[in-house]
């Protein structure tokens, strides 16, 4: 088995474990979080948090690569979206407002798209005054490894690099529930 194949397999299984796919045929997204906890309050499905999330190195809107190593030690809100996805565009300002509530040294909101529309995306973000990073997942490999099967999908990654929660569909990311959830993750002991 060559190294690249081993790497792909290993990488993929890491993500599979992260998103609870070890038993196929079970509900795809895992059990919903209980009401009353910070995950449940925002309708975010808890993930096991046992296995590190997949690492990545993708080109950003400004042309520079963004390596996930630069996000190490931070809480990461990883949002998958597309330009043709209305709910994705609607929730984008709230993601920007969520980012504004936190020090970028502690919390980073990062968006990922498979759309190759850099000019349109730049215009869209400029028009809304949004400065969130946009990463291009050209072949949807990162999306596939995170088992992104609908948009928007947002994965919450803890400071230890473990995926902790997943939201499918739009959320009010600037809501009290969302801010409380990020604070909860930030205060979590790795």
């Amino acid at each position, binding site marked *: 088995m060559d190294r690249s194949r*081993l*790497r792909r*397999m*290993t*990488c*993929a*299984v*890491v993500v*599979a*474990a992260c998103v609870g*796919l*070890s038993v*196929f*045929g079970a*509900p*795809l*997204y895992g059990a919903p979080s209980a009401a009353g906890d910070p995950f449940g309050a925002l309708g975010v499905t808890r993930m096991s948090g046992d*296995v*590190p*999330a*997949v*690492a*990545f*190195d*993708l080109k950003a809107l400004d042309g520079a690569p963004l390596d996930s190593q630069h996000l190490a030690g931070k809480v990461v809100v990883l949002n998958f979206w*597309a*330009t*043709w*996805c*209305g*709910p*994705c*565009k609607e929730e984008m300002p709230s993601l920007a407002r969520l980012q504004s509530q936190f020090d970028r040294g502690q919390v980073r909101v990062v968006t990922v798209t*498979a*759309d*190759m*529309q850099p*000019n*349109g*995306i730049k*215009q*869209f973000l*400029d*028009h809304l005054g949004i400065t969130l990073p946009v990463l291009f997942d*050209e*072949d*949807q*490999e*990162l999306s*596939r*490894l995170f088992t992104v*099967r*609908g*948009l*928007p*999908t947002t994965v919450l990654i803890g400071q230890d*690099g473990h995926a902790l929660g997943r939201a*499918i*569909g*739009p959320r009010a990311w600037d809501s009290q529930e969302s801010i409380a959830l990020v604070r909860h993750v930030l205060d979590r002991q790795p």
Partner: protein
Amino acid sequence: MIKPTINTQALYVMCTVAVAFAVGWPAELWPAEAPESSPAFGSKHVTVHHVKGLVGPSVQIDDEGMISATWVEEDKDTRTILFSRSKTQGGPLGAPVSVNQPGESPYYRQEAPALIVRGQDAFVTWSATHPKMTPDKPFSGELRLSRSTDGGRSFGPSTLVNDDGQVIQHTFDALNLAPDGVLHLAWIDGREGKKEPGTFVARSIDQGRTITKNFKVDDNTCVCCRTSIATSADGLVYVAWRKIFDGNIRETVVARSADGGMTFSAPVVVGNDRWVYQACPHRPASLGVDRMGRLYVAWYTEGADETPAIYLASSDDQGKTFSEKKQLNRSKGTFPDHPQMAVDPHGRVIVIWEEQSPVRREIVMSHSLDRGNSFSQPRKLNEKHGQTPTIGVNQQGTVVMGWKEHAMPAHRLVVQTMQLPGVSVAEAEIRTNGP
């Protein structure tokens, strides 16, 4: 680039699971078929594309067995809609030609152009960057129809399909040429400014030179699941899409027209899946009709239990009611995705789809010789990571299948033909049960 981050103990456990997938899966998925029911596969024809991005293909096969394909390429910020046709039966594809004219700027998207080939006519619909796009409406596009009258050797200037003039998206289109020569188009359109867009249709009765007035078939269309159109020998027109019902329930629905596409019925729910989903699934349904008028629908849903599955249902009463749905995917170790279907006049049904696991991205196909009553074991087609499968069939039951493979640093388009076995089973059922 994706990089693994993992400790040694976890690596051991995960590799064990991965090897189990890699070794144990194929034998379960693809047992040998009985020779008498086995289709005859043609050679795979691969073209390699050293471009930044590629979307597609869409494929067709004519009654002489010539293959046609269309796709989108992007390189150095230039996007081109390309068309290619084989010069021999079953391929390979010939040199590609540009569908869009200089000055026509395709809008890159996640769907291949729609394609219909009939004789020397080739029709392609695609999305153009809206000429009045402004910074506050950056993702706007027009739906364009291009036509070739010389077998795809050249294409003329495109015709605008949407008649609203609004700077919005007009996309997720479908195209079908009815037996009477009328070209039918469907797409998703938010011109009314509602929270959810609608499903719109139009026709061309002059081989694509002009487009009729657009009209809405229905509201509350799922914004990103492509439409599908089929026409029948008895003049019916069917349109399928995914509709959003109260509670964010997503159902595949079909509306029919008995007057050549001038009016449509209210949509009918096909599978009653009860799939509650508040995001964009981005997975279309696929339609086909046999010469006896049976309507077939293949679609993806996660149902009420959030389990991904591909289903087929049929209707023998012109889409008023549908049969019990039949699940086509059988693997326990993968997720099915993106089904596409072709139906020949004899009621032979071929469905192609993706099977995804953390370590695989396969293209598989399954066929039915008895009008959808039973299906063959899914059979793997691809060699590299495969995606976006597409399919077409001609009157003789010769199938063309196409898909994209990603093989860094290039993209590969693969086309392959398949001759379906005889029609005795399908014909016998028709004689017994009637059309």
